[in-house]
């Protein structure tokens, strides 16, 4: 595949685009790039996209609380609604459109088989409180997935109910805190590396802990010495991301775990980057006590523009007894869902319930279908290809972009670059926006904080070499412009549905809901 598939030499400004520049449409549309109003602007009062009877609630038994004023909900007929959302969807970038190298987010292909499976009536149309004899298949899905997660991580138990990674972190820390309390050893500090994802410190605080941070060393790893020095008896846990947020493996992981345990604390591992090592390394062999797995990353449940996700947490033997309710247990050839009621008998020390019902079933079915499709061999290949792709990007760009840790050896599934060498005030942000014009989603920007103007590139294993080569060509061209201080980068993107948006304005005068013009006026 050529870098420029249409087989056409970049048009000279005077041609085509010149005419485009001089063309103004009365609709504001530009052919297939269509402007779309808000549903509130489309609304015409009593329109609806459903056909329901008008029933008289004569004998209403609403406790005298009938509505006495309209809600103010717009309604659209079905044709208008389908068009509204279809048009809006076209203003989004997505994996289905191209490379989405958002570091730390593992934006990989989402197989459609998994969507089909999740919609089987036996999974999609089942109530969480149906008697257990009527949901044995659902419980079996949870059980099979749990076993895969345990085998892949080499851990002792798994809590399936957490609803996302951050919720899983909370689950892990609550297990740790419960274990400490159980031995009457209240500790108040959780250590978190500077490079950690924001959810780590936020979760520690949410769980009632104070947070202290551990510095990183030159090689982008946890400064083991500094960590050891801080391991006093007030430390409840250390949260480590491995592979870490610089896309590097923590080679001292086992030693760190031992040191932490020696100090009477626990090791929480942020498993968001499990994709790099699945089938290659078992976290259980590294001495960790708890780790969440983002099914919406490693196991490909669609991210959906911001969730839903799912964050099962694998646990060590030391933490297993404290796992939250509910969980699935095998009793003979029947599966039982252990809830509050039975916790007495089965699970005295569980720290309790984290969410209503039993977790993200719709994600479990997708993840299980994904895992069964890959199998043990496929998953190992996933890790290898994701690491191969990242290193290919790293080595193809290190001569034009500063790669702070490139010397220290290969990266795992992510390649990280800094803005060193950019001239004329061109920033990481400018480069990212120029990538948009080239038809790519930008990489993660300015994270982790330990690298200046960080650009964290995670291609994932579902990108072809051709796609990577095209991305690399685009990056090389933009990097060259950045180093030459090319002012025009500041204008990017120019081809997207919107130019750069004024975030300061948005935060200074927050407009979070639509108000009809009249009201809006009044509000001012």
């Amino acid at each position: 595949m050529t870098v420029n598939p249409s087989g056409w030499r970049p048009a000279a400004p005077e041609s085509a685009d010149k005419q485009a520049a001089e063309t103004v449409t009365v609709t504001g549309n530009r052919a297939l790039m269509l402007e779309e109003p808000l549903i509130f602007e489309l609304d015409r009062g009593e329109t609806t996209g459903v056909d329901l009877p008008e029933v008289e609630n004569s004998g209403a038994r609403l406790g005298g609380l009938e509505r006495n004023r309209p809600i103010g909900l717009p309604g659209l007929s079905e044709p208008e609604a389908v068009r509204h959302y279809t048009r809006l969807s076209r203003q989004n970038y997505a994996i289905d459109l191209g490379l989405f190298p958002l570091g730390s987010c593992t934006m990989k292909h989402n197989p459609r088989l998994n969507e089909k499976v999740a919609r089987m009536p036996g999974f999609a149309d089942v109530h969480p409180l149906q008697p257990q004899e009527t949901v044995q298949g659902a419980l079996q899905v949870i059980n099979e997935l749990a076993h895969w997660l345990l085998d892949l991580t080499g851990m002792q138990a798994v809590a399936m109910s957490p609803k996302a990674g951050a919720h899983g972190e909370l689950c892990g820390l609550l297990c740790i805190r419960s274990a400490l309390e159980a031995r009457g050893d209240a500790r108040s500090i959780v250590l978190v590396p500077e490079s950690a994802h924001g959810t780590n410190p936020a979760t520690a605080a949410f769980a009632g802990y104070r947070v202290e941070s551990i510095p990183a060393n030159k090689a982008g790893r946890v400064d083991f010495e500094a960590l050891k020095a801080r391991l006093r008896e007030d430390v409840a846990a250390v949260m480590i991301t491995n592979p870490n947020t610089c896309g590097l493996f923590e080679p001292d992981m086992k030693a760190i775990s031992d040191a932490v345990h020696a100090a009477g604390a626990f090791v929480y591992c942020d498993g968001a980057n499990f994709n790099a090592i699945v089938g290659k390394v078992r976290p259980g062999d590294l001495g960790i006590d708890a780790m969440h797995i983002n099914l919406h990353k490693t196991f490909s449940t669609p991210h959906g523009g911001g969730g839903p996700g799912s964050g099962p947490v694998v646990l060590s033997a030391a933490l297993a007894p404290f796992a939250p309710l509910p969980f699935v247990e095998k009793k003979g050839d029947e599966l039982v869902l252990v809830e509050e009621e039975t916790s007495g008998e089965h699970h005295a020390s569980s720290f309790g319930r984290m969410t209503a019902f039993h977790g993200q079933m719709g994600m479990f079915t997708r993840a299980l279908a994904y895992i069964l499709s890959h199998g043990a061999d496929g998953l190992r290949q996933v890790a290898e290809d994701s690491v191969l792709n990242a290193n290919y990007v790293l080595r193809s760009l290190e001569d034009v972009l500063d790669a702070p840790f490139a010397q220290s050896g290969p990266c795992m599934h992510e390649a990280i670059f800094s803005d060193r060498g950019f001239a004329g005030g061109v920033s990481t942000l400018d480069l990212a926006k120029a990538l948009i014009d080239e038809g790519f989603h930008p990489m993660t920007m300015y994270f982790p904080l330990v690298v200046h103007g960080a650009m964290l590139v995670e291609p994932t294993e579902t990108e072809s070499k051709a796609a990577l080569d095209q991305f690399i060509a685009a990056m090389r061209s933009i990097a060259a412009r950045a180093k030459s201080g090319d002012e025009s980068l500041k204008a990017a993107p120019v081809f997207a549905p919107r130019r750069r948006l004024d975030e300061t304005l948005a935060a200074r005068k927050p407009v979070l809901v639509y108000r009809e013009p009249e009201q809006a006026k009044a509000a001012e």
Partner: protein
Amino acid sequence: MRYLPLSDPDRSAMLAAIGATSIDDLFVDVPKEARLDGLIEGLPLHASELAVERHMTALSRKNMVAGEVPFFLGCGAYRHHVPASVDHIIQRGEFLTSYTPYQPEIAQGTLQVLFEFQTQVARLYGCDIANASMYDGSTACWEAIQMAGRITRRNRAILSSGLHPHYVSVARTMARFTGDTLETADPELDAETDADRLIAAIDEDTSCVVVQYPDILGRIADLGPIAEAAHARGALLVAVVTEPVALGLIRAPGEMGADIVVGEGQSIGVGLQFGGPYVGLFACAEKFVRQMPGRLAGETVDAEGKRGFVLTLSTREQHIRREKATSNICTSSVLCALAFTAHLTLLGEKGLRQLASLNHARACAAAERLAAIPGVSLINDSFFNEFTLRLPVEARPAVHAMVEKGVLGGVSLGRLYPGVKALENGLVVAVTETVTDEDVDALEAALREVCA
């Protein structure tokens, strides 16, 4: 392997370009002893789509499908008809396979949807503003309690006995670790809600009162008096709504003085899915915006002055504020929020009112018939599409007995409040527009038998 584009020649070429001789060169940082040289034992190898589909189909067939039997379960998850176009919309690849809209220039689709969603939720709840979704109703409920604590700088919350027991459990779990005090109680099989108890319990340390509306037994109580009492003592009223369709017919909590309104959005657009994923709704008064958890989409303009939307006020959030964030939430439930907003847009003011009326009418009719069964009585004076029956027998075995007859007859309070004798005979029955007259016939017949 169908999901992996790299061919072996690709791999060799890329290794060569990298200057590595084998893939293991790229895993050098992993200590030898931690590296697995082979496949993990005892796990199957990759499988064709056909094989995987067969396996999953077999599992799915082991479940009793709600749509294929007379079905009356509710208690926080409701079965409504979702238009086919909603599922089509959420399967648009541009929605399904995009990330949280960090790059607004190429995420206006998701951002405008969230802005519309926030507005719909705020209006439905009768509040100024709403956020871009939480995990679900139960976690949103705890976040609301926390938020009330931050606002009032108090840490004693009073939970209504009508609050969904799972929501109570979640709060109880968290409170143990945050050191908040929670006042809780089990409900009573009685037409009266515990408004008086709540009002009486409010004191100067009270951060908030948490009331579900309609409550776990289906009862509907005026929130006005509770709001007044709370405000009089500087406390907030947190209202919880597990069945948003009800708000098509009854007054919005915000209108009655609730300061924070949270709830479950599942029943509009999302479907049952054995309990998840669902979508948490979170709304409040504008003055509290900086204490709010979760994402917020806001309006702004682009470099050309065109209207556009961005994620805003992120100084509240973990990725900026880290341990000082208002919450640790990151990924929430945007695709479910899309399903919710798309379904609600199809309904509109008129459709939601009609849907709510239809639900209520059917529930009223069913309640009358079931209450006429000898030994069975209806405890509710008021309800929307869900009510509680006192049976002459323990409800939990009754539910199992009805399964034998192919009827999913409701949720027993024994399942929700294990060991609470006083509630043992309670059966919560939900009746939505998807219930047919034949379904009610079947339930009535089954219930007669098990109660006889």
